[in-house]
């Protein structure tokens, strides 16, 4: 596949209470954003296991977006605070192992921020496009070093 015809596939984990509703609002408001994301609805950003993120990359996703409620607004009071610590460590670990950390993006989008949602998706898609197709961590059977 030539690079010009390549379109990134991005897995978006959206929290049920904020970001998913934000995406919904973007939709009903007829806001435009790139159609590269595949949405998976989760109860809370705190429910995101780093394993899900790695698994998405392994299965060939070019990027992953995790989005939840703003700090202080979590439906479960503090799920996103726990998530923030977890993601911080995850991000630092990715950087240290040399995996492009820009493929994995985090955002806080509330249910009323349809506009912000479309902006975030546009930013993420642009960032992933810059990096090109994902190769690291993608399932491969041969050793290529």
């Amino acid at each position: 596949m030539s690079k010009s015809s390549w379109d990134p596939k991005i897995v978006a984990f959206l929290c049920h209470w904020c970001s998913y509703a934000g995406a919904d609002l973007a939709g009903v408001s007829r806001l435009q954003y790139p159609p590269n994301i595949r949405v998976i609805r989760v109860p809370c950003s705190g429910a995101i296991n780093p394993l899900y993120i790695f698994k998405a990359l392994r299965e060939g996703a070019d990027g992953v977006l995790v989005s939840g409620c703003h700090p202080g607004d979590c439906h479960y009071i503090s799920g996103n605070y726990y998530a923030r610590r977890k993601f911080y460590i995850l991000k630092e670990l990715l950087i240290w192992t040399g995996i492009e950390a820009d493929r994995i993006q985090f955002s806080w989008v509330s249910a009323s921020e349809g506009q912000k949602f479309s902006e975030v998706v546009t930013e993420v898609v642009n960032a992933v496009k810059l990096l090109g197709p994902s190769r690291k961590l993608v399932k491969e059977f041969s050793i290529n070093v």
Partner: protein
Amino acid sequence: MFESILKELAKKLLREKTVDLVIGYGSSQYPFRTEPLLINKEEQVATLTWNPFCGNNLARYLKYYKNTQHKIALMVKGCDSRAVQVLLKEDQIKRERLYLIGLPCSGLVNQEKLLKQFPQTSLEDFEWKESGWFYQGKKINPSLLLEETCLRCRHPNPTEYDELVGEPMTDSPYQVYQQDYLEPVDSLSAEERWNRWSKEMSKCIRCYACRNSCPLCYCQECFAESTQPQWVSPAPIPSDNFLFHLVRTMHMAGRCVECGACERACPVSIPIAQLPLKVEAIIREQFQFEAGTDQESTAPLLTYQENDPGDFIK
């Protein structure tokens, strides 16, 4: 010298029925090695030993006694006692079921290093004195002899024990800190780091020795062996090796006590402890937490602050 004290103590504990089981180190049929020794009779203490080859982290065995009523005496070095502390904190075993025999540790001797440096040698040639290791009376550089884990050790003394056998060590006798240890990797570019790690990971044969020797990997079913869903392929393909180690590292975040059991167990010499070590360094710096050093503080991923770093989130 301390061996006889240990034997007496083990005998006494078993005779007085203070404990049902003593887990310690026994002499091995191989030179410069020891093996775990699980004894429940007084007469079995004869092979109990304590020397710089007692590498196994015996806290691993507590997992197998979680649902029994045994009272257990466990020989713990500094790192092992930190592992026990984490297990206690995570409610994996009750403190009253444990009798911890603390062993201040002057570092474990690496067999390969030893034989490379001193091909014709016996253990009697080496002596630990207050200021370091001596070979036939001459002081030697500990980095020629000791395990990497021990060179970067910050807590050679047990943090939790019922009885201490031996003289407490001065803290961090070797002064090689994590930063120095990880520096060669830290200073590489992102691409070089990726090349390094993907090369290391393609060596992995997925024997799970790292996981199985880890005192804190106690899940009944590991995600790596789950079949529904199947997170990683059981075949040792590079991408899945990497995924396995990354997720294991995340599982160890804020829990790893840096005992180096994984690294010593690795049959293909992957410096696998560096991953959790880096994470622990990040956690110490950002969240001021060190696993296994006290009973009160909450594990860093089980708590939060409102002003935690969040600049990376859009």
